[in-house]
């Protein structure tokens, strides 16, 4: 073989290598797994689907825009979701699978205190960044000092006092509050905070509890009615249970005010309670008619059918805050991302606007997102914003 031929072959081989290298570089996108722990069955399903779908839409938009560029690499994000059935044991199992088998470094969820408290012993020692929405103070105030967990929605601690004050003005003659709550971490943690806020404002409070999975609430409601309560507060009941409580309360002749101080999303309640939901007052996280919320609502309905739960925009908001923190950190190192997240105050997030981290006083760590919320009222089967409250 002549030297010229050898040279030609070598040149061609080099060109081929260069071309394939360029092609490889163009597709050199790594996959980053993002975990989701959500209630995908039972009474908390609406919340779980809201969580999963909100994160999924944020991921879809990021991937469609070319992926997440960190330290010279480009990542396509892939969501892996497991059902926690709104309980601590299943949430722990889900966290174990995500952290130890799927090797994820970031988890969205769970929603609800039982799942959140159940998953922390797995995620926090492993320094997995977690974005939860449960109302128990211990989610942030814990043995790990809330180091890698952020609560991305107001909790009872943040919204109870402002709601009670608003209710006091709205119904000045109301004196006695009734609350029926699940007998789990959600009820045990949230109800005392809410009850304290009511008592501080001059109300008397009656409470009772039920086991998760209960569908027939009439005996409990009759028990409550015997106390002559003026206001029935649904507190943090999941949409499935809250809808049934409204329906059955009206069916047994309860005529007082029904309010839900907590829990995102109102459409599921209207769907379950039907016309009996009329007059309901409810805390909610967003006003869908706001210009900054509308694009997300449109994206949601383009991808999913049915009712959109309020947690979808909450988690979409949280996912976008995280992506921005990751870009600023320029690394996949969770400690550096966490540090950037803490410095995000003032960042204009897509749903709630400027980020405000709080919580140092109540939880010992500023990992609590504080945002404006609304009180909605149901009239003729439709919910409309009755008040906008900034805590």
């Amino acid at each position: 073989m002549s030297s010229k031929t050898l040279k030609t072959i070598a040149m061609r081989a080099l060109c081929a290598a260069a071309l394939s290298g360029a092609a490889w570089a163009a597709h050199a996108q790594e996959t980053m797994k993002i975990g989701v722990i959500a209630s995908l069955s039972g009474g908390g399903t609406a919340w779980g689907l809201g969580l999963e779908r909100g994160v999924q839409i944020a991921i879809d938009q990021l991937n469609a825009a070319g992926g997440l560029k960190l330290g010279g690499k480009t990542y396509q994000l892939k969501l892996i979701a497991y059902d926690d059935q709104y309980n601590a044991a299943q949430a722990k199992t889900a966290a174990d699978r995500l952290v130890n088998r799927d090797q994820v470094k970031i988890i969205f969820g769970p929603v609800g205190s039982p799942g959140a408290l159940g998953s922390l012993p797995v995620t926090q020692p492993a320094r997995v960044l977690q974005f939860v929405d449960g109302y128990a103070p211990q989610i942030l105030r814990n043995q790990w000092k809330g180091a890698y967990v952020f609560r991305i929605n107001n909790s009872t601690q943040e919204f109870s006092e402002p709601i009670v004050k608003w209710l006091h003005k709205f119904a000045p003659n109301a004196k006695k509050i009734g609350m029926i709550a699940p007998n789990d971490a959600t009820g045990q943690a949230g109800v005392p905070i809410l009850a304290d806020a009511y008592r501080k404002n001059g109300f008397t409070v009656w409470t009772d509890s039920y086991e998760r999975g209960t569908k027939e609430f009439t005996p409990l409601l009759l028990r409550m009615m015997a106390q002559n309560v003026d206001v029935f507060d649904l507190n943090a009941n999941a949409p499935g249970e809250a809808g049934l409580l409204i329906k059955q309360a009206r069916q047994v002749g309860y005529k007082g005010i029904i309010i839900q101080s907590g829990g995102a999303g109102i459409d599921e309640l209207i769907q379950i309670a039907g016309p009996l939901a009329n007059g309901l007052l409810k805390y909610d996280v967003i006003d869908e008619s706001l210009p900054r919320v509308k694009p997300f609502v449109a994206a949601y309905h383009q991808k999913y059918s049915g009712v959109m739960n309020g947690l979808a925009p909450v988690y979409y908001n949280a996912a976008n805050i995280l992506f921005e923190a990751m870009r600023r950190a320029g690394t996949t190192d969770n400690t550096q991302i966490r540090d950037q997240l803490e410095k995000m105050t003032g960042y204009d997030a897509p749903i709630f606007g400027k980020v405000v981290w709080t919580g140092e006083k109540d939880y010992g760590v500023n990992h609590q997102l504080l945002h404006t919320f609304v009180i909605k009222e149901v009239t003729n089967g439709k919910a409309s914003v009755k008040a906008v409250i900034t805590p």
Partner: protein
Amino acid sequence: MFSPAVLGQVFVDGIGLSAIYILIALGFTLLFGIMRVVNFAHGAFAMLGGYALYYLYGGLGLPYLIAAPAAALIVATVALVLERVVYRFFYQRMFQSMIGLLGLDMAIMYLAVIAWNAEERSVPPSTDALLHMGSLVFPAQKLIIAAIAAIALLAFYVFTHYSRYGLAMRAAAQDVDIAEAQGVNSTAIYRLAFFIAIFMAALAGGFYAQTYALSPFVGEPQLMIAFIVVILGGMGSIPGVALGGLLLGFANSFLGTFYGSATSIFVSFGAVILLLIFRPWGLLGVKEA
């Protein structure tokens, strides 16, 4: 505290609960009484009945009086395939049926999750009307369910005691070999009993979905209710279902109101445990030789 109005409402609630419990348990006890099959997939058929009603009544908008029986009929007809490929192998095999049908229950439930996802849905009630009598409030939907439960109980009793097929079912239940020697086609009789049982489960599932909510998981509480009712009343006994349903319904209503839900659950299951120890054949069941 507990005014006469509240006490009256507790009684009204007891009637409503009992009616639902009776309807849920009727099909369950029939399958056991005739074929000695403990149908742990009972709740799954009730759940399918809820979805069938959701589409026929809530979706297609058929008149309720057509949609409710048609939904149950569709589920019972499709279930005949399972009768041929699954249930037939478990007739007169009580313990095998428990495990086998528990597996079938899980399979149907998670197929439903794949088909419809786990989202909770609402099936519109046939009426939202609330009837007022003095200070008492009667949800019309629950009154309809109570009326249907009473009619179903009576029809069941008349069918099994006075009709040719009903008598053949009872004969097969007592001794299938002797019944066959007398000309009873046990395969056809079993198929008929299965069809009626699934029809009742699906009908009850539709009512349950209207009263509460619908998801692939609503079958589990219904199975539990059916199980408690028939253990209280006696496995296989139709009057036992009536008694068991009334006892459980009124116990839940009164105990839940006066002592709270935890006490109500404790007493219900406590009664079942005591009964299984001291009278395992139930209050109106027949002691096996």
